[in-house]
């Protein structure tokens, strides 16, 4: 391949054309990636031109190029945000040192692990969502799904780039394994539990992109602080794309709520199920489920790994440099929740040990913003209902609350109480059956399924009737 060919095929700002190591690694990996996409990417519309955004550069102009593309021809590129001149390490034991341009041997294993765990989630979500295209509520939504999918694919590329470029042989092996683990595969599952569940319907997809992609945002944001500069720059660029995924979630849930309110008004009832809509309490149960599952992704409240990563400078806090402390945290303490048989209390622990909890709190605050917007539209419709984030102890399988039952309003409840109320708190079989019954593909441009309202605007200033996917 010539330089022009390489750069055209794999847009990048990492001098791929001059980097033999990377070319060699990608030569082996890229065909495997394409094979993976064909097998485990979207199950249909594989050759349908989709109106996709492709990043071909990091600058204002380059990063959002729209055109109809067949997905296998999508140009998955490798982009790192522009380097910050003389960047220094902002936190931890190496605070003030120059940021690292190569991985220090001392932290090889930890950095590799962080990158592999992050990277593993990217293709996992594509696998989880692979059948959703069959029931897209509109071409607009189908296009958004595909946009999220190709970008998760690009995020995989971003992590694979780091593994290939900086981790030698072991990195190449890890990059291969990212394509060998599969979501939900009993023998060879994805690393994190939440990424082994299928995303069965579009309500779940909206919830997933709202809550679980937002976990991704917080993980990426704390990795953006990393002393390992290429990781920092990679995550910085990924965050731009991640914002769109969360938009899909926020606007998606908002549109469902909107449609429900319309149906409630139209039929003058709280129960819109007979009218092909989704009741607000059902939406609340889906929200409960996805929020709790996403909280588990933050790990246990206290973690020596998190402390070590911070002290070493591998992973910071959300917006580390805007925080008003010494960024070393050697003697600082804080309170973390603690579940005991007597109830929910707190205990004081070193801040360094509680970094997962600190990140989770930032996440929770961010999650609340979407709910405020949705609740505003509910209130404007004159409906007396409020969507709420359940208590952070609700339905948890990781950390202090695992093994305890906590109600959405934060009470420790008995086994019996839990089972008696579970169907009010979490999606029931009836809920799932109802949601499933509404999953029908709508493929006529501009048309919407009946359970979700149209978006306020189209993509890239195109009208709603635009043929976002040419079937």
């Amino acid at each position, binding site marked *: 391949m010539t330089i022009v060919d390489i750069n055209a095929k794999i847009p990048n700002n990492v001098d791929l054309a001059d980097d*033999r*190591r990377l070319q*060699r690694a990608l030569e082996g990996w890229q065909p495997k990636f394409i094979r993976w996409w064909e097998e485990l990417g979207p199950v249909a519309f594989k050759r349908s031109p989709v109106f996709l955004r492709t990043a071909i550069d990091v600058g204002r102009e380059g990063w959002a190029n729209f055109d109809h593309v067949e997905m296998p021809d999508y140009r998955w590129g490798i982009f790192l945000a522009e380097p910050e001149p003389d960047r220094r390490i902002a936190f931890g034991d190496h605070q003030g040192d120059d940021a690292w341009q190569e991985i220090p*041997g*001392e932290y090889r294993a930890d950095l590799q692990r962080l990158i592999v765990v992050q990277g593993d989630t990217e293709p996992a979500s594509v696998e989880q969502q692979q059948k959703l295209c069959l029931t897209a509520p509109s071409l607009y939504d189908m296009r958004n799904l595909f946009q999220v999918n190709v970008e998760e694919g690009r995020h995989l590329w971003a992590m694979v780039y780091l593994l290939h470029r900086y*981790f*030698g*042989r072991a990195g190449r092996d890890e990059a291969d394994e990212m394509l060998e683990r599969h979501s939900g595969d009993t023998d060879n599952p994805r690393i994190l539990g939440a990424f082994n569940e299928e995303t069965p319907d579009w309500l779940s997809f909206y919830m997933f992109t709202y809550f679980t992609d937002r976990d991704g945002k917080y993980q990426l944001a704390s990795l953006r602080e990393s002393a390992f500069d290429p990781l920092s720059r990679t995550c910085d660029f990924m965050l731009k794309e991640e914002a769109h995924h969360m938009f899909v979630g926020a606007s998606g849930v908002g549109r469902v709520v909107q449609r429900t309110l319309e149906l409630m008004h139209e039929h003058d009832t709280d129960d819109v199920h007979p009218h092909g809509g989704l009741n607000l309490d059902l939406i609340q149960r889906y929200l409960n489920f996805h929020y709790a599952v996403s909280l588990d992704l933050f790990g246990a409240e206290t973690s020596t790994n998190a402390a070590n990563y911070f002290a070493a400078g591998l992973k910071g806090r959300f917006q580390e440099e805007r925080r008003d402390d010494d960024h070393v945290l050697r003697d600082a303490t804080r309170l973390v929740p603690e579940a005991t048989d007597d109830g929910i209390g707190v205990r004081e622990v070193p801040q360094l040990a509680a970094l997962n909890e600190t990140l989770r709190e930032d996440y929770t605050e961010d999650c609340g913003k979407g709910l405020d917007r949705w609740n505003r539209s509910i209130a404007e419709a004159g409906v007396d209902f409020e969507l709420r984030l359940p208590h952070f102890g609700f339905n948890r399988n990781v950390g202090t609350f695992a093994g305890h039952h906590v109600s959405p309003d934060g009470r420790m409840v008995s086994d019996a109480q839990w089972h008696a109320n579970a169907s009010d708190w979490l999606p029931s079989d009836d809920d799932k059956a109802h949601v499933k019954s509404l999953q029908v593909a709508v493929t006529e441009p501009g048309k919407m399924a009946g359970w979700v309202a149209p978006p306020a605007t189209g993509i890239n200033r195109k009208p709603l009737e635009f043929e976002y996917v040419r079937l």
Partner: protein
Amino acid sequence: MSDLEIEFETSPEQYRHWVVEIDRERATLTMNVDPTAGLRDGYELKTNSYDLGVDIELYDAVQRLRFEHPEVKVVVVTGGLDKIFCAGANIGMLAGATHEHKVNFCKFTNETRNSIEDATAHSSQVWIAAVNGTAAGGGYELALACDEILLVDDRASSVSLPEIPLLAVLPGTGGLTRVVEKRHVRRDLADAFATRTEGVRGRQAVDWGLVDQTAPLSSFGNLIDERVAARAVESDRPDLGPGIRLVPLDRTVDGDSVEYSAMSVSIDRRAGTATFTIAAPDAPQPATPDELIEAGAGAWVLRCARELDAAVLHLRFNETAIGTWVFRTEGDADAVAVAEQLLADHPDHWLVREIRLYWARTLKRLDLSARSLMTLIEPGSCFAGVLAELVLAADRSFMLDGTWEDLDDPPEPATIRLTGANLGWFAMSNGLSRLQTRFWGRPAALAAAEATVGTELEAREAAGAELVTFAPDDIDWDDEVRIALEERNSFSPDALTAMEANYRFVGPETMETKIFSRLSAWQNWIFQRPNAVGPNGALQRFGTGSRPDFDTRRV
């Protein structure tokens, strides 16, 4: 201990503590320690007690007797003071030494005692201890390293290992091991012996097996003569010289690098590495034993061993914070093989034998060094035969697969080549060759590796024969090596030393492995314990008149 650099190079003219007299087939080595000439201030080397400086001279003497005096068949080691043979290691020196110096000191003295046994066993140069006065602790251990122990029976002179009752440490130079393993003293008697400060004298010492013979002062000289004569006739060493002269090493120190004639060592303090680069001979080498004698210490095979030995000792003692030793070679592998061929063709020649044995000892010293050993096999290197042992001795090796593609004129890919030398010339302290050790319990893999003898193996073949650890190509090379070295440097040096010592010596136990593992590990533990080294411990209290306070809990 101050940080003054310890110098290992010496020669008989400079000795302060020993006198060497050669009388045809007999050499007499008399210990006469100058109390004022300790290596450091703060202690006096009274009553023939020794410090590292005394032992450096002893090591030099052992080497010269072997190389410079082929005609010497028996070495008599004796004491030069009245009623004292040797009082062992100096207590003041031990009490003031850093932990790592004590450990290094014991290791070096052990290696010297092993080389005395090696001379007896393999060079037909038999060492006899003429214990003409009290031999305490390390003094008796020096006698134990000899093949025969003759004790004067003057009603006063005893042999003893008083370390435990007096100092709360072990006799650190193989004493406990040799008493039972070599002299076959019954263990209960050995226990009684090692816990009684006054030791054992005369007849009883013979009865317990602690010495071979005694004689009263009047006939002690005759006994020695008799034993020398008896042992000399058994020796296959030549009756006449000439030997070769172990001339001072050609060495230039420039900051953090040392240049020798056949090798250089350069230190990277930030990375914690010392890189040895060994060069193949670049001029014709002796092809016959006569030419070898003619070339003497200038012959590459000997020069290289001496320089490696010197560099290892220097780094061990003077660069304790440099935790990883990296081995590289440069030059023509054929030249190495040709130089070595002489050693293969004339195994019975005294000098050939000495050189082969010297390499074996030097490589053992490498195995026993508390450093991570990494070998890098790159294009232009010459890991053949004796130098291939550096691949086998390494904790990990990296061999470049292919060549440096980016060079305008890429060199031939690296190769390694086993020769007959790798099949048993250089036994490790477990008694096995490094190949046998590598493939312990896997005879098929051993046979497959052995079958490659004489063949130049490129990286994939070498990896296929399991001779190298990793074979990255040029794209990965720099990072793989850098990361491996950096990662190594970030681990605990103690844990690494312990891990390496566990992995390096698989297979059978020998007296040497017991000395370097069981004895040394226990001793090094004791050296950390307050009962020995604490402010109220025995080493500090020794000679003050007050008894040590022991923490009586057994661990």
